[in-house]
């Protein structure tokens, strides 16, 4: 039984390597032989609906996306805390339920606050 742990992670390593080898073998291996190479300056311009591209796309971006990213971090970390609680719920019993209710309640207050502050609105 003890071997199953190390063997499982060996398999995951095999999957990881296969997942890297497949793109390498097709894009840089077989593909390199099969595909034509015929560069022209027009081909190498950035696509912008057929017009001459103006400016640069790597610019400062709408802040709204980052606010959602912050909210995501809060709730994802919360979920990470919920997982061990859920696994051990049988042993922990009623006391942990009340504790977790308080924890979730505080987070729900945060969500309601963000909601009322109109952070969740996307205009």
């Amino acid at each position: 039984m003890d071997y199953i742990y190390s063997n499982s992670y060996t398999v995951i390593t095999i999957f990881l390597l296969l997942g890297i080898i497949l793109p390498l073998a097709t894009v840089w291996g077989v593909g390199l032989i099969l595909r034509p190479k015929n560069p022209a300056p027009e081909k190498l311009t950035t696509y912008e609906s057929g017009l001459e591209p103006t400016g640069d796309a790597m610019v400062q971006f709408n802040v709204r996306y980052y606010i959602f990213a912050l909210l995501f971090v809060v709730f994802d970390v919360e979920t990470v805390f919920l997982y061990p609680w859920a696994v051990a719920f049988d042993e922990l019993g009623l006391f942990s339920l009340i504790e977790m209710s308080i924890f979730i309640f505080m987070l729900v207050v945060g969500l309601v606050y963000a909601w009322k502050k109109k952070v969740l609105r996307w205009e």
Partner: protein
Amino acid sequence: MFGILDQQFSWLNFTILALAAVALLLVVLLFVMYAIYFERKVIGWMQLRKGPNRTGPWGLFQTVADVLKLLIKEDVVPKKVDRFLFLIAPIISFTPSFMVIAAIPFTENLYFTDINVGLLYYGAISSLSITGILLGGWASNNKYSIMGGMRSVAQMISYEVPLIMSFLGIVLMTGSLNLRDIVHAQIDSGIWFIFPQFIGFVVFLIAGNAELNRTPFDLPEAENELVAGYFVEYSGFRFAFFMLTEYVYTFALSSLMVTLFLGGWDAPFGLTFIPPIVWFALKFLLLVFYLFWARATFPRVKIQQLMEFAWKGLIPVALFNVMLTAVLKTLGIF
């Protein structure tokens, strides 16, 4: 798998496992090819068209021809891109999609890993793909692709929270993150988790659809506003790897849903003369069909509807489901 995982490590076993993994990869690639064919056919029939029917009998070789076409297309890397990130983004996006399949148990004997944190592994690894999408969108240095990449990330992180929360009811009921234990719990109790965890199932169904960036949640690649979203600048097989990622996740997510909610390989109504792998495949195909059906039926949502639905709708419902399950379990009903 067939007892090999219990044995001490040896290079012979390693070779067998590696060959099995390659076989699975080929099965997944075959699935992807025919899932695309099936999708086009299903949507064709639903719209009273015929779908692909020219290449081979009933158009069966259409996707094979498409893959070949992509392989012999010229590979254009525009001048203004961030070259290194542009080249590795499809790999970063694809690799996790195949890695997560390692966690899925297909039948009693056919499983690749038996790890105690299977469910957590799935959630953790699958979210790595988002990095590839953002890198691809940003490195392209194209206005459409950066908008598509940003939208995609905003959508995927928003729907990841309810998706991962929807598992929690099941974890509460089984007290385990091991996917094999979860299936065994369903077989032993004789009831699939779709019934006691119906709210979780619905949340998973919607959030899973959004995680896959499929219609009605396909805003990142909304072709009439963003051309193709984060892979505008990609051509040839690099583009194919972004598409492949999407369909491999369709495979992984549908398998996970079968494992968690539909009893895995368990035969319903005592119909055990049909082999377990066939049951798994049938349930799996049902869920894949659901995804295609949703695509043919629902119109695309607007971005504000999309984000508000995740935060104001699905997350409170998923949290409610967790607390409801915990309370019912304390009362001794589950």
